């Protein structure tokens, strides 16, 4: 009852568990909750009884008999809590070891998740791909299930990876790799967010996990492995060199890159801007690592770690001024003209 109501109430309830670690923890939590409730009832009823029974009556002014202690009673309320603690501890230890020390199956999917100030990077070493912000993993239970093992680390400060329905959180620390595993039961979308304070936009370091069927997952991998589609006219390598030397924003008119609003011009403008210092589009000269990889930007449903939906209008507005959506985030407003912005948007739209 409680878990089901909670789940209906919120997509991030820790009680609607969808994965083995979360389920085990949940069972433990009900056990602990039960014991705590019993202690609470016992003690608070005694307290209430004492308050009612032993209240002073105005007629009676004599002092009550003085009692200074009783070794027997005191021993009993020392020993009973010790026993309760033992039970609680053993219950915890069982789940603790079974979740934390789970051996990794050979078939497991490896994902390295890197926290950045306000976005997530996901590397799949087995497939040689890098994705950002939206994590795709396969269903983990059943005959076709495949467990996911995450290696967690950070590029700057401490973050924490948390999808309540799938499992507890694990911190991402610079200079260190932590591990956790997930085996989601059913395909679907799971929400979570960064759970360690990491700076101004900690609140909008949101996280979405897409749990795919094996087929969906395979096709997603294949799509991510594809290089970007070559745009007509053979890419943008030409002409970018000199522009790099003078990375001053180029005014719309007289722009050597032309001023048509299309993807091709957009790519040139993109590569003339500082965008490429921070963003990578594989197969082009953009190979920055400071911001999310944009190679398959359009395969994502949201932008900027789920701060908004991935629509052309939002994309354009984001590039014009990221701080409108995430004040304090580390992508600066690039002071583009409206036209440049539209061109870049047109280009980014082709990064499927």
């Amino acid at each position, binding site marked *: 009852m409680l878990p089901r109501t909670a789940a209906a109430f919120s997509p991030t309830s820790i009680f609607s568990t969808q994965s083995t670690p979360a389920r085990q923890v949940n069972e433990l939590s009900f056990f602990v909750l039960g014991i705590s409730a019993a202690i609470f009832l016992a003690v608070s009823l005694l307290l209430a009884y004492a308050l009612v029974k032993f209240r002073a009556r105005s007629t*009676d002014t004599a002092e009550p008999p003085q009692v*200074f202690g009783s070794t027997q009673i005191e021993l009993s309320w*020392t020993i009973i809590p010790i026993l309760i603690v033992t039970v609680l*501890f053993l219950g915890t230890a069982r789940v603790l070891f079974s979740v934390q020390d789970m051996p990794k199956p050979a078939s497991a999917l490896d994902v390295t998740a890197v926290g950045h100030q306000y976005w997530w990077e996901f590397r799949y070493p087995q497939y040689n791909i890098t994705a950002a912000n939206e994590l795709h993993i396969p269903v983990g239970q059943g005959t076709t299930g495949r467990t996911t093992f995450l290696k967690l680390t950070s590029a700057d400060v401490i973050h924490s990876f948390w999808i309540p329905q799938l499992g507890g959180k694990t911190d991402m*620390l610079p200079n*260190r790799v932590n591990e956790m595993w997930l085996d989601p039961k059913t395909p679907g979308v799971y929400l979570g967010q960064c759970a360690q304070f990491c700076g101004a936009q*900690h*609140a909008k370091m949101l996280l979405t996990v897409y749990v795919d069927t094996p087929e969906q997952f395979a096709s997603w991998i294949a799509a991510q492995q594809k290089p970007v589609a070559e745009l007509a006219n053979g890419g943008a390598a030409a002409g970018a060199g000199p522009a790099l030397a003078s990375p001053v924003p180029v005014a719309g008119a007289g722009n050597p890159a032309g001023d048509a609003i299309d993807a091709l011009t957009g790519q040139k403008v993109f590569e003339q801007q500082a965008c490429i210092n921070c963003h990578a589009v594989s197969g082009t000269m953009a190979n920055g690592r400071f911001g999310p990889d944009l190679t398959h930007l359009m395969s994502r449903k949201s932008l900027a770690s789920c701060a908004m939906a991935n629509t052309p209008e939002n994309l354009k507005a984001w590039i014009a001024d990221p701080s409108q959506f995430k004040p304090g985030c580390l992508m600066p407003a690039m002071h583009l003209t409206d036209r440049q912005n539209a061109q870049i948007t047109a280009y980014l739209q082709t990064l499927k």
Partner: protein
Amino acid sequence: MGEGTFPIPHETGAGIAAAGGKGTYLEVIHSWIVTVDHKKLGIMYIVYALLFLVVAGVEALLMRIQLAAPNLTFLSPQTFNRMFTMHGTTMVFLVGMMILFGLGNYLIPLMIGARDMAFPRLNAFSFWMSALAGVFLYFSFIGGNGLAGTGTAPDVGWFAYAPLTERAFSPGHTIDYWTVSLLANGIGSIGTSINILATVFCMRCKGMTLLRMPLLAWLYATMSFLTLVTISPLTAAQAMLMIDRYLGGHFFDTQAGGSAILWAHFFWIFGHPEVYVLVLPVFGMVSEIIPVFSRKAIFGYPAMVAASVCIAFISLGVWAHHMFTIGMTSVGNAFFTLSTMLVSVPTGIKIFNWLATLWGGKIRFQSPMLFAIGFLFQFLIAGLTGIMLSVSAWDWQLHNSYFVVAHFHYVLVGGIVFMLFSALYYWYPKMTGRMMSEGLAKWHFWLMLSGFHMTFDLMHIPGLLGMPRWIYTYEANRGWGTLNMLVSIGGFIQGVAVLIFVYNMVRSYFKGAIAGPDPWDAWTLEWSTASPPPAYNFAVDPEVGSRRPLWDIKHPEDMDSAFE
């Protein structure tokens, strides 16, 4: 007054005004600034802390407005982050520590029959150091990024995890103000703790053996010891942070191979015992107030002493329960689960002993007792949510969620703040010579109680629904909106309650009924002298023969000393 009573010094007129009423305003102020009298220093601590309670409370309310509904823009993210940092730091260091030291300063010498603290000048020095901390911390609002008008404040949380606090991620001087402030506060706290220990051990009046001391003195001594061994690591860690920020050191510089975990360990080696530093003196106040209002001696005095000392020692070995998700080994997690849970045994002893003190008594429901009962009930719940958090596997879910925020406000507000109100109602007559209005106190109590429960009971639920701490806003689809609205309303109700309390204090100072030396018919030494006590505290150095010297005088037929 017959034989065996304590002579009460004659002091006409009520209130501190009488003491200072002999000069111009300037002279009065001067006398307070240069004072080394433990009572005046104690009162300054308390007033200073109450001032900051309102400041930090307002900061909390600003956060609550921002969080009342999804996607609000009342505060910018940066401002929100500053608010919870300042709120947490202020509440813990400038409110909690200061008011506890204030009450300790005021009460300990009176309760053990001494004329002053062991080192009065050190006492004054410590107060002004701690007070300076508040100035440093709040100066950061205008001085954080230079005086050029771009005022800021630290925005890294009260735990200030590295490497976010390193120059690379936090340029400007906000963190420096925070660090300097905590250093100053730390020096003050260490000074006061040394003073309290020396006072308790070396200044007791004749006949007051260690096992005849009021429990409050015992708990302050334990707390002071704990302060020595916990504030010092914080001081050391702050020094390291300063070395990093000013001398280019690499203690927490992850680029140079430094470790982010080390800070976390250092902080919580301080941070965990710190919360017991806050709660131990409060246990002392409960142990003084509950007996008086149930008209019974404290049940199991030796066990209470032993339990306090146990809590202090166990609390030194549990810090990593704040770090269950940081990637410790399973054995490490198991160890800290067990050690944390063990604290519940001595704490349970205390709870049950208080219950047993109520049992068979004749309970008087006056304002100090109301708040003390609130404490008992709320501390029980808070302790049990603490136990839930100590279940490391469950803590992977609960950590850094609003469940944790609810847990610690339950202890800090439902436990400590409630008990501080109780203590202030109880000892205000001693400090000022006037009673506080019982009617206003009842209003205060019931409003505070309902506001508190509305805020912090409900706050557990968003935590269970996955709401993390430190977020300045949240999406509507998470289902946290309604709850947060109610939580915020509860916060404002608490605000109104605090306002009533402040009004009551100010009003009673001028208009309250004259209290007399012993308004509550109590048993410890502070009630044997005038209210407020003269500068020398006691007309004649007292001498005691039991734990309850005034009981012995009032009940010669049933003296405690007969049972010892």
